[in-house]
């Protein structure tokens, strides 16, 4: 059961860093536990939190952990600037403020009975990982699970052990590709869309959830349409500069939508005209 936010959504709640693990040279996964130990940290797959690094700033970060574990929050963060660098360098035991969870989630419940196609690029696998956990925990309620994941290079791939584990589960297909592969890489080389031809999709009974750089998602959607998926069955996670996370400040306005409140997950049909606009 997901609880609604009953406290002031602008007030960060105290959490403690319990674990920091390195995923790639610049990407880390943090586990945060409520400081008082009792707070329910329930969330829906696809939602995000605002993480407050004291003295540095606040960041919107997608929750990448298991929704069934409501006593902790897991985030996978790429260190690309001062605030993210500071966040991933937090010591175990240090405090971080958490607001949220915010936003819409992936349509995991609505996808029951159908095949689930997840297409992730780069760190876009992190917001989709909770979907994978939820589908696998309720395996009989879903059809095939197809995970198509593209990364920059082998050393930039997230969750490699889990990918290998998921690939061994019946009715689950995991295909991974990289843009640049060295001689030691035995997997696919090419963009994520090149995996479609190996993925044995059944468009009429599938729901696709896509997360990655916007340009990648545009290419993916084009190819999903080409294999026969309906616009209504394609969902994207959009990203803009989020500040308040509750639709007050307007920083993340995207056409008629606020990404923080109306998104970040949108049905493709909702954002299709916006994806083709310059500088939006």
């Amino acid at each position, binding site marked *: 059961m997901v609880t609604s936010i009953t406290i002031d959504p602008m007030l960060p709640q105290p959490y403690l860093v319990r674990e920091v693990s390195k995923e790639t040279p610049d990407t880390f996964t943090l586990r945060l536990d409520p400081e008082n130990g009792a707070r329910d940290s329930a969330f829906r797959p696809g939602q995000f939190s605002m993480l407050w690094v004291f003295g540095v700033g606040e960041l919107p970060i997608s929750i990448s952990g298991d929704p069934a574990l409501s006593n902790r929050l897991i985030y996978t963060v790429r260190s690309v600037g001062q605030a993210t660098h500071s966040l991933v360098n937090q010591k175990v035991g240090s405090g971080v403020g958490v607001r949220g969870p915010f936003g819409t989630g992936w349509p995991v419940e609505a996808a029951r009975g159908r095949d689930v196609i997840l297409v992730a690029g780069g*760190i876009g696998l992190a917001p989709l990982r909770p979907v994978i956990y939820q589908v696998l925990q309720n395996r009989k309620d879903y059809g095939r699970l197809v995970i198509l994941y593209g990364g920059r290079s082998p050393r930039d791939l997230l969750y490699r052990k889990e990918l290998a584990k998921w690939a061994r589960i019946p009715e689950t297909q995991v295909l991974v590709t990289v843009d*640049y592969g060295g001689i030691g890489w035995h997997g696919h*080389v*090419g963009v994520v869309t090149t995996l479609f*031809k190996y993925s044995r999709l059944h468009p009429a009974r599938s729901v696709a959830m896509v997360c990655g750089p916007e340009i990648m998602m545009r290419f993916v959607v084009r190819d999903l349409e080409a294999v026969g998926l309906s616009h209504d069955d394609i969902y994207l996670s959009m990203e803009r500069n989020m500040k308040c996370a509750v639709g007050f400040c307007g920083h993340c306005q995207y056409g008629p939508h606020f990404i923080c409140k109306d998104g970040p997950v949108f049905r493709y049909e909702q954002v299709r005209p916006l994806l083709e606009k310059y500088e939006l």
Partner: protein
Amino acid sequence: METLERIIGEHPFFAGLDAGFLSLMVSCASNVRFTAGTYILKEGDAANTFYLVREGKVALELLAPPHKPIIVSTISIGEILGWSWLMEPYRWKFSARAVDDVRAIALDARCLRTKCEENHDLGYEVLKRFAGIVEQRLDATRLQLLDVYAVRR
């Protein structure tokens, strides 16, 4: 026992091909195997064969001395390997290495080039199908060149 006719006839690349053309294709085809690590074709060599990959994965490599070769893409089950045989000077632009053990159908490109010259309807069919592959790979290469997962500062 699978026949070459059936394998080639059921492959999407040859879908809808006139039965007469299909038998011309089959007359230029043979089954081949490559063990992991072996080179199927090498950059600069004469391009006189192309392949329909049935099993395994092939890495397309570009020589980059003094560094190790760069893998530009991989080709796997159901895909076509090689189109340099279509255009003069009929030399491979990349090397292709079997990443795993590979089973494929080899098509004798010299034989097919001759048949395409003799029969332009066949030539047009072949060219249309290869143009589709070239377009898909050009699209994929453009996206790959954008380096979309790199950090933008």
